[in-house]
């Protein structure tokens, strides 16, 4: 790559000089606003009221997005924004998982706000450069990059015609271009998307961090909801942030000592226990592949089944022993002793435009192995790694890609679509070649890849309207809700997790609540009220990570050795206290667990009202496809016949003897759908919402969120 030639071809469109403001107790109280339609760059003060109610991160993102759009704004309208924000605790270096950026935008998949979190160095660098948040609005005429130099205090918008779009190339090119030398590369972080982000609705944003040992720009993804698609639609090629001089106290915290103490205590806990617990340092989230299979929870063949005899071929030890480079500090921000960001070095690609090249694959994550692999019936670790690499570099979401490919495979096997429609792709379960070709088509914007890349929600409509598919059946097996593809856990045997997916703000993503084990395995939340309490507490608690700039994994992917002796082990009380100490240490504000939940409730309810404002936040939008609730087909019923028959007998009072499978499916379905409705009632009640899913004015008042613009929206839906 001729970096100089690329750089010389840049045309400066706008430049903004500023005095970088140092952080004070975690905040600069400044936001960088950029409009790439008219090349405006300006500084905005964060109002005190906004800081109090929205805290930071996702809270700031949602607040800015609300102000930027109207109820009729579509994802590809220029007024849609991409907001990147961290949060007050983000950027500290003493505790694991403290470098998360939260990205908010109107999603091309769901048409409502999406929020997605991502590691990499960009967010902390942005803060240290003087900005609590970055708002990007407008649409450029030609491909541009935005460059923020946090040491010099310069922001530039430049036309950038020659750089590649694919992330693994562009990340390297921009890092090389803006670093003064090899040692300076660690001071650069880049946001990119990829070629398939342009041609599909499932685009991701890749955030880089420079790996000083592997000497490569690693990629972490803000995966869900198609924000990369918005990015490329705005014709942004990349955003670079450069900051030299990271130290452990740049947040200028109120009490560094308590942060140090909490961080060192946690590092010791990891050092002493990780290898006895989840092995996150060795294999990251992929440690659960075989566990999910063992508990019948691994999605197989488009969520029909929960296990497969070939899972052993892709179990975590295969990746540990054969592929992932071990004993590397794999944190995606400094101080992450959990270090789950695994990488496979020198992986030789077998297909696509980079065939034959040795590349660094970031992963595999559990979701990749489950979605790209098991759910599509693919049990070849090298295919999973190759798809993982191409998803990242083409800039598409591995979860949506996995789930939508599983969906089209089932449609193909059941004759809903055929070879004419797929233009020759034989999309049978297990056909790795077809999946790889599909992903390359998405990059090129060709063939069936263009149709599949629309996402399941739009595809299912097309299959009904254009190809005469049976609507009821198709909607039953289409694992999407609100337009977002399900992430990779089989939830049909856990009512609480059905709610954990269905009763979410952004769509079925497990970052709000993962209750399968509590519910199904440990039977800790037996009643509707217990489940509703869990579906209140956990989504709120987990929302808090997104306000503060934190990763969820260090909370419960390791637990203190005495955790099981505590009153509520599932909450990991000692770690919750760690977070309260970190918040206090940075901001000087001592809050308890109740106030922590209320901070989240303010933003959570704001997001719910935002959804309603955009036309997708009511009870009808929380309905889920039956595939996520129970057996749609005869084969699914038969695969768990004993369990289902027992449930009919014991829970429904229906004697299955002598009944046809169809009768049994129908009866079980009526029961399970009713259970979901009852759960929905209980959850809405617990959250302070009407039975139509609308936050009540009383609830908003109680939270101090009775803002006129929110009341105006909810009042329309109160009767």
């Amino acid at each position: 790559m001729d970096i100089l030639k690329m750089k010389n071809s840049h045309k400066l469109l706008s430049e903004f000089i500023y005095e970088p403001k140092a952080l004070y107790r975690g905040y600069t109280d400044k936001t960088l606003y950029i409009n790439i339609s008219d090349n405006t760059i300006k500084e905005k003060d964060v109002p005190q009221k906004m800081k109090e109610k929205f805290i930071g991160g996702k809270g700031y993102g949602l607040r800015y997005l609300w102000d930027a759009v109207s109820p009729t704004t579509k994802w590809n309208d220029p007024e849609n924004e991409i907001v990147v924000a961290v949060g007050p605790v983000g950027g500290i270096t003493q505790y694991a998982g403290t470098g998360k950026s939260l990205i908010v935008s109107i999603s091309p998949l769901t048409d409502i706000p999406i929020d997605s979190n991502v590691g990499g160095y960009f967010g902390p660098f942005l803060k240290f450069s003087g900005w609590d948040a970055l708002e990007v609005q407008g649409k450029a005429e030609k491909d541009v990059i935005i460059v923020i130099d946090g040491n010099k205090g310069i922001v530039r918008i430049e036309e950038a015609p020659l750089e590649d779009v694919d992330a693994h190339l562009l990340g390297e090119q921009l890092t090389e271009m803006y670093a003064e030398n090899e040692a300076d590369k660690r001071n650069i972080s880049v946001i990119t998307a990829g070629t398939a982000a342009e041609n599909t609705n499932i685009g991701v944003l890749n955030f880089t961090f420079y790996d000083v040992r592997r000497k490569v720009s690693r990629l972490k993804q803000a995966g869900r909801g198609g924000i990369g698609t918005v990015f490329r639609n705005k014709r942004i090629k990349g955003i670079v942030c450069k900051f030299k001089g990271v130290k452990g106290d740049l947040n200028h915290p109120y009490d560094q000592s308590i942060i140090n103490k909490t961080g060192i205590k946690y590092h010791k806990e990891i050092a002493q226990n990780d290898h006895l617990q989840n092995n996150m340092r060795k294999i990251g989230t992929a440690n659960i592949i075989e566990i999910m299979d063992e508990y019948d929870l691994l999605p197989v063949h488009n969520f029909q089944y929960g296990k497969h005899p070939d899972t052993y071929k892709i179990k975590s030890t295969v990746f540990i022993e054969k592929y992932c480079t071990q004993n590397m500090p794999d944190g995606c921000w400094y101080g992450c002793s959990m270090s789950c960001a695994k990488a496979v070095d020198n992986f030789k690609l077998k297909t696509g435009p980079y065939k034959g090249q040795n590349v660094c694959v970031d992963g595999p994550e559990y979701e990749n192995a489950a979605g790209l692999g098991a759910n599509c019936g693919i049990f070849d670790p090298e295919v999973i790694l190759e798809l993982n690499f191409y998803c990242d570099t083409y800039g598409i979401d591995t979860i949506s890609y996995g789930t939508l490919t599983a969906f089209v495979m089932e449609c193909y096997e059941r004759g809903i679509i055929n070879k004419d429609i797929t233009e020759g792709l034989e999309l049978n379960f297990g056909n790795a070649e077809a999946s790889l070709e599909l992903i390359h088509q998405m990059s090129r914007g060709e063939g069936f890849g263009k149709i599949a890349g629309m996402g399941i929600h739009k595809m299912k409509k097309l299959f009904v309207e254009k190809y005469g598919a049976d609507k009821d059946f198709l909607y039953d097996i289409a694992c999407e809700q609100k337009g977002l593809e399900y992430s990779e856990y089989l939830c049909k045997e856990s009512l609480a997790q059905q709610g954990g997916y269905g009763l979410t703000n952004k769509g079925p993503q497990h970052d709000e609540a993962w209750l399968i084990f509590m519910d199904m395995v440990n039977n800790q939340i037996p009643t509707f009220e217990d489940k509703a309490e869990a579906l209140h507490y956990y989504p709120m608690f987990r929302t808090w990570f997104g306000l503060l700039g934190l990763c969820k994994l260090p909370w419960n992917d390791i637990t203190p050795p005495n955790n099981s002796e505590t009153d509520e082990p599932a909450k990991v009380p000692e770690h919750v206290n760690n977070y309260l100490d970190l918040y206090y240490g940075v901001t000087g504000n001592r809050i308890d667990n109740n106030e922590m939940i209320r901070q989240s409730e303010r933003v959570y309810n704001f997001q719910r009202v935002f959804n309603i404002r955009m036309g997708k936040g009511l009870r009808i939008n929380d309905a889920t496809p039956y595939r996520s609730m129970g057996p749609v087909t005869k084969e699914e019923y038969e695969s768990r016949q004993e369990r289902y028959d027992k449930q009919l007998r014991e829970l429904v009072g229906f004697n299955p003897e002598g009944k046809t499978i169809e009768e049994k499916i129908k009866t079980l379905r009526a029961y399970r759908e009713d259970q979901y409705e009852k759960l929905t009632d209980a959850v809405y009640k617990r959250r302070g919402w009407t039975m139509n899913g609308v936050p009540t004015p009383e609830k908003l008042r109680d939270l101090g969120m009775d803002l006129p613009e929110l009341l105006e929206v909810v009042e329309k839906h109160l009767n």
Partner: protein
Amino acid sequence: MKRLVKDENLCIGCGKCEEVCSNAFFRESNAAKSCVRVQEIEENKHKLTICNQCGKCIEVCPVQALTRDSKGIIRLNKKDCVGCFMCVGFCPDNAMMQHDDYIEPFKCIACGLCVKSCPTGALKIVED
């Protein structure tokens, strides 16, 4: 490789080593700022915490601020250190030290001042 070794049976807990070390590093007599630590675990029995230059800290440092010099001693480049303290948490002997007055950790460089100050020969420098 040059490193500090100990014979805890000889230690009388006088704290001279801590004093001389913290004075050398930070110009104050403060055991909490010493790279060597003496702890009385029972009457007349002391535990000495010293760095054996094993290198675990090098492995976990995300910025390669810890490197081994030609004599085998692990040194911290404070300029590159980001103050994450993972080296403190992962040190098998708890010999990577930290004090809240500083945002970087500190460690033994096997200078031998403590050896010279020790009245009983409980500390020694060896080269192997």
